[in-house]
């Protein structure tokens, strides 16, 4: 045997040593190496993009969490705020924010003199480095504490967005050449105040808890109220999508007879999952707002639209987890005399619960980041300035949502809002990452392999 095979062994077309590769093998090996590099390159590009995205978000958004404040001692002059001296709240309220401007101007003048800073600016222009919200802040304080009138109190006022930009390096002396709202002299003053410790950049909790502000005051805008809007929307989604989705999946998975109607429902659900989200926005506008006359911009409407959008996701994942419960569980339940309904609700559903929960959280995370349908039902272009005071008003009075708020800021002309938009994205991503992590932990912890 060995002899024969040895003799008839096919001769290599290329004579030569095995140790020395011929040119064709070298070429083929090179092609192999190239191909592998393409693959590594593709993955590297994907990761690089992720890294660039994350780097971009963090570096550009982190600025929104610190803000420039100016500390001033304001004398709450009785002669300006309460002329009759009787501390009548109605009369104090009659003094508009314009009435507070001189107090701030005086306080600023005094501070500058006290520190011995020399500046060619008039007091009015000096005080202009403060935010336009300073007067309102002062007025709110006086209305809340009328008994403090006549005293001198230390306040921390927001600086104007240009000053804040200067402190963060976004605004420079060159870039303000054509800017009417700030001058080089004012920036000199800012430098001196900073050196004196009056003007400081500190952590800005108001960005996380505060309300949106108008175009003129980017420094005062915050995400808080739109977070509440998102929260209410998610509550609606959770309250509707979870029970309806679970009920629909139980029917389709456990009870539905195999007929054309069931087939239609199944095809329908898988197609609904792929319908562009904006189409759900059109549906919401046509049905909930035009037909049912629910209020525009209400979190209830947003929640309903997002419910319809998330339902397919929840149904698909719930069905998968129901399917993974082995038939032996059902058989055992039926065998000891349970009805089919009892077998499903007492045994299959509890065993599938962790999977259902995971799918629901992932569906909610998807809904939380969705923007397009919210544009059509009017959750953009609206300045959400007050937090709702009750559950009914939380659902029905106009509000914004986190992604809609970010879009709104990105649309505005002042670059100071861009920093807020990136900062808002950090908050949004923190929520999404938390939700997904919870989902993964739940899956790891409770998933049973049968």
């Amino acid at each position: 045997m060995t002899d024969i095979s040895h003799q008839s062994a096919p001769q290599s077309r290329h004579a030569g040593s095995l140790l020395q590769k011929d040119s064709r093998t070298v070429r083929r090996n090179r092609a192999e190496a190239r191909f592998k590099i393409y693959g590594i390159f593709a993955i590297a590009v994907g990761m690089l993009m992720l890294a660039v995205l994350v780097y971009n978000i963090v570096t550009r958004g982190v600025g929104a969490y610190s803000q420039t404040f100016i500390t001033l001692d304001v004398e709450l002059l009785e002669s300006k705020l309460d002329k009759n001296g009787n501390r009548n709240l109605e009369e104090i309220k009659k003094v508009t924010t314009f009435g507070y401007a001189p107090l701030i101007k005086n306080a600023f003048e005094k501070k500058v003199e006290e520190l011995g800073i020399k500046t060619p600016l008039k007091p009015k222009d000096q005080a202009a480095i403060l935010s336009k919200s300073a007067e309102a802040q002062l007025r709110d304080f006086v209305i809340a504490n009328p008994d403090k009138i006549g005293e001198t109190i230390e306040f921390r006022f927001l600086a104007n967005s240009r000053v804040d930009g200067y402190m963060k390096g976004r605004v420079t002396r060159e870039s303000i050449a054509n800017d009417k709202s700030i001058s080089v002299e004012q920036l000199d003053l800012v430098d001196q105040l900073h050196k004196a410790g009056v003007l400081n950049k500190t952590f800005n909790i108001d960005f996380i808890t505060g309300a949106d502000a108008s175009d003129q005051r980017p420094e005062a805008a915050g995400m808080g109220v739109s977070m509440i809007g998102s929260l209410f929307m998610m509550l609606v989604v959770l309250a509707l999508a979870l029970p309806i989705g679970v009920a629909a999946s139980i029917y389709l998975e456990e009870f539905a007879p195999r007929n054309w109607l069931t087939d239609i429902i199944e095809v329908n659900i898988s197609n609904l999952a792929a319908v562009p989200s904006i189409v759900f926005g059109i549906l919401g506008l046509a049905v909930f707002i035009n037909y049912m006359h629910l209020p525009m911009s209400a979190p209830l409407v947003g929640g309903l639209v997002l419910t319809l959008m998330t339902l397919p996701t929840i149904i698909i994942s719930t069905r998968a987890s129901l399917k993974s419960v082995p038939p032996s569980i059902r058989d055992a339940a039926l065998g000891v005399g349970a009805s089919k309904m009892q077998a499903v609700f007492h045994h299959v559903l509890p065993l599938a619960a962790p999977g259902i929960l995971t799918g629901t959280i992932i569906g909610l995370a998807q809904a939380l980041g969705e923007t397009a349908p919210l544009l059509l039902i009017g959750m953009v272009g609206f300045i959400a300035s007050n937090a709702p005071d009750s559950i009914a008003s939380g659902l029905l009075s106009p509000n914004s949502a986190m992604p809609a708020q970010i879009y709104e800021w990105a649309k505005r002309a002042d670059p100071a809002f861009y920093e807020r938009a990136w900062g808002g994205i950090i908050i949004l991503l923190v929520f999404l990452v938390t939700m997904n992590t919870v989902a993964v932990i739940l899956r790891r912890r409770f998933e049973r392999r049968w």
Partner: protein
Amino acid sequence: MPTYWLVLSLLVLAAVGYVLGRNRALQTAGGDTRALHSLPNYYGLNVALTSLVPALGVLIVWMLVQPVFVDSRVSTLIPDSAVPEDATLDLVMSDVRRVADGLDEAVEQGALTPSEARQLDAEATDIRARLGEVGVALGSDVRPEVLRAAQRYRQLTSVGKTAMSIVVAVLALGGLAWSYSQTHKDFRARNVVEKGVLALLVVAASLAILTTIGIVFSMFFETINFFGLHSWKDFFFGSTWAPNFRGDSELSILPLLWGTLYISFVALLVSVPIGLFAAIYLSEYANGATRSFAKPLLEILAGIPTIVYGLFALLTVGPMLADVFAKGGLLGVEWMTGATSVVTAGVVMGIMLIPFVSSLSDDIINAVPQSMRDGSLGLGATQSETVRQVVLPAALPGIVGAILLAASRAIGETMIVVMGAGAIAKFSLNPLESMTTITTRIVSQLTGDTDFASPETLVAFALGLTLFVLTLGLNVLALYIVRKYREQYE
């Protein structure tokens, strides 16, 4: 809001019914649960469900039907002569509703007494000013026939609300009484309850169909309205998109479709090679550790909300491209005029689609039987030759399906193009020019003040329907191809 209270009292009633039913069943059995046909809880559930479900169902249907009914009754009150030339009945009706809501608001705030509100006279009082005082802004002065219609509207609505409350309460109490009287130890409560629950499950499952019907109908009727006002020939075959809110606009879908397809094409040009090579590497070359590290990281890209990509396009990629290609840029050319362009939106969308292509292709490549690879490797082919000449041809139909699914995502994507693509509708081959898409136009036509009688607003529904049909068609085709392919190897 009385509806809240109605629902709340229904729930309370159901809870009471549960306790009553359970107790009565136990009573008839003399406290011995073994004498009952079903477990005691089922008797309680039976009473609770019988009182709650029909009442709640009627409540929901009533709330859906009443506005239509009231609208149709009230609109007969408005003579044709009362509809101004430049408006339609819909517009007058929305005035009527606003006046009616305003009067309700005024009564609630105490600015008007209920009887005053009923006897208002459009000639004698300035209703606009009085409603303005309570914070209800009206666009124009209230005409007598509008006021009359608004009064009728209020009357019908309040009668409807009262009738609804009575009907619902009667149904709930009746259901409670009936099921309570039926409760007896021999009553087959479990069977009845299970039938009821099954019916609820069926209703939940058919909600998916209802959603689809809702989507199709909501767009279909408005599209028909649109084609009544605007010629369908211009919509499908015209060449210009120039909406003009003074009327006489040219609304053709073709330039928008061109922009949509061009941007999607650029997106696929980015995502398909990267996604496909990543999938090949992960499924054919990578070891377990690399795979379990790289795959989830890539999939994060799919979980990032589109608003983030939109911002990335608008504030990072766009300005970066403009630094290179715009006037005064690095190349010294002037190919770009602003930050928005086909490439801006396309590249960013491509990044978003990488994980779609890669994970779908990954699944499909993994489904190719190992024996085919073994055969090829056994014949002396290198691994890359095996992939190119055996695995990829075998997986091709599935990969085509995956690419089609990604294309359907790209066509329906909204935020990235709204922020990155621009607003100019034109046919151009220059990928650095800004162009607009179907989804951006839907957003811009439907946000802000919309008037549902003008073709400029209604066109959004026609665009939406086209988009829906387009993506649905792509999806059905893709799923069909993928399924056929799976069957081949199963």
